[in-house]
């Protein structure tokens, strides 16, 4: 019996070890390595060896206006994109829940953007929003705009254009998930609410919303984390411009490391970003863990 148990433990170890090895090698070790690099000056393509400078990169961060700006831009982008995606997505989930002929087909068409390669969606939106020949400017003028709109080089415009492109891709995702969550609420719950004399609005607030809460959590956290890391649209559409108006933390790290070749400083920024994301992720993981434990 004891031998069987030991054999079981060995089997479990052998099953899990390969995946853990990959994750340790490609996640944990690089994170530790990033900590190490962040304590050095390390310039890409220069033959001089990295030089130890302690926490100097981090103290630099505190005085770096571009870094603070990047944090702010990231915050603006994430809040704007996620709240628009969430509100429209949940609204559409209710809309698509109406039992009408043909809606199922429309729903399947509506979710097509989810899987589009983000770089390709950047390419499409770059084309549509182009100042000289873009279709959206054509619509704008058709609708009475006196001049062409600088969608990608204007100051609030550029960030809003990124939000638009991001929302195009992810509203369908929120809609899809919330739709599934709505469908999973059994009919009798609504019947009971009706018997208790709740009005439509009361039913929504006291019955539907609490039942949707777990799905809402999942969607909002996933979206926030992914919007925070988004880089493809910026790469293609604005490259951080104009004047840093769309320079998010992701983009700043990318450009510090691989456009300005300053790997040590980029690593320090990356470490800060990892800490922020880890905090958000922990909220998600803890909630899931709590639900599983129940």
């Amino acid at each position, binding site marked *: 019996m004891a031998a069987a148990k030991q054999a079981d433990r060995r089997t479990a170890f052998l099953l899990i070890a390969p995946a853990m090895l990959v994750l340790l090698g490609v996640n944990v070790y690089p994170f530790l390595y990033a900590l190490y690099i962040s304590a050095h000056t390390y310039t890409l393509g220069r033959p001089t060896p990295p030089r130890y400078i302690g926490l100097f990169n981090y103290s630099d961060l505190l005085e770096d206006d571009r870094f603070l700006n990047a944090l702010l831009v990231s915050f603006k982008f994430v809040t704007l994109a996620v709240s628009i995606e969430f509100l429209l997505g949940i609204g559409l989930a209710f809309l698509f829940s109406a039992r009408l002929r043909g809606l199922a087909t429309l729903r399947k068409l509506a979710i097509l953007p989810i899987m589009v390669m983000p770089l*390709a969606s950047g390419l*499409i939106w770059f084309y549509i929003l182009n100042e000289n020949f873009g279709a959206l400017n054509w619509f704008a003028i058709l609708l009475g705009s006196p001049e062409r709109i600088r969608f990608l080089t204007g100051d609030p415009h550029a960030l809003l254009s990124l939000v638009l492109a991001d929302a195009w891709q992810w509203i369908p995702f929120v809609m899809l998930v919330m739709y599934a969550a709505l469908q999973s609420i059994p009919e009798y719950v609504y019947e009971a609410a009706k018997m208790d004399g709740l009005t439509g609005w009361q039913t929504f607030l006291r019955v539907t919303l609490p039942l949707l809460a777990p*799905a809402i959590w999942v969607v909002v956290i996933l979206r926030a984390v992914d919007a925070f890391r988004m880089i493809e649209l910026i790469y293609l559409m604005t490259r951080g411009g104009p004047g840093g108006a769309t320079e998010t933390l992701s983009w700043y790290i990318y450009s510090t490391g*691989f456009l300005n070749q300053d790997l040590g400083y980029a690593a320090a920024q990356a470490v800060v970003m990892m800490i922020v994301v880890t905090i958000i992720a922990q909220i998600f993981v803890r909630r899931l863990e709590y639900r599983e434990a129940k």
Partner: protein
Amino acid sequence: MTDVAITTKSQTRAVVRLRNWTVYFGACAFVGFALFPLYMMITTSVKTDQQAFAWPPVWVFTPNFNAYYNALFVFGGRGVGHYLMNSLLVTVASSALAVFLGAMAAYGLARFRFLGNRDIAFFILSTRFAPPIGFIVPIYLMATRSGLLDSPIALIIVYTSMNLSLATWLLRGFFLEIPIEIEEAALVDGYTRWQIFLRVALPLVRPGLAATAILSAILSWNEFLFASIIAPGNAATIPVFLSGFSASMNIDWAEYMAVGTMAILPIMLFTLLLQRHLVRGLTFGAVR
């Protein structure tokens, strides 16, 4: 959500009809918004250069497929086929590995009790949240040191790890759903634990394996950041190729749109295949 179909007698038919039309209108408007950019990409890929740049935009024209011909056989001396093949190789290899390693880990976590089981499961889940940009500098240096820079192997390893949290979590859920009695019966019949895993449990979660494989493949196919840094040249994948677009002065819109169309059409087909498990996969099993 009160149903439109169930109506009280006090509601006149006109009100119901108005409501239905509003729903249809909203749904159609949104579908139009969702499809318009895809329509633009596909139509631009069959425009001529002048048509792609024209102001006002050309809406009606005779399609021609020169851009596809150029992209496949002429583009920069080396056709886009090379990059499509790179993408395909990296995608297939990394999703196969992720599904295989993920299924093993998932089965170990779902069926064996040991200290730290849940900690390991949640550690694996939490790697999903780590932003790639946080690893990009060390991964770049690791790839350079090991001589794997610009080789598909480096990308395959990175993507396998990227997809492992998804694979493990989704499949863990699928394994937990199969009744344990089937495996207990197999144990009584003298199967070893490994035989049970390979011959009994794995076939039972086949839909889960398919969903995981498709979703992993899509994520690998679409990934840009790692590819742009560790596979910038010969091993470049399709997104890296597309990103070269913003750097080139002489932009050929139709050809880039043709490449973009070729890059996203296979994925659309996959998405339609995946419908049944799409939500479950996208939310790591949290919503079904």
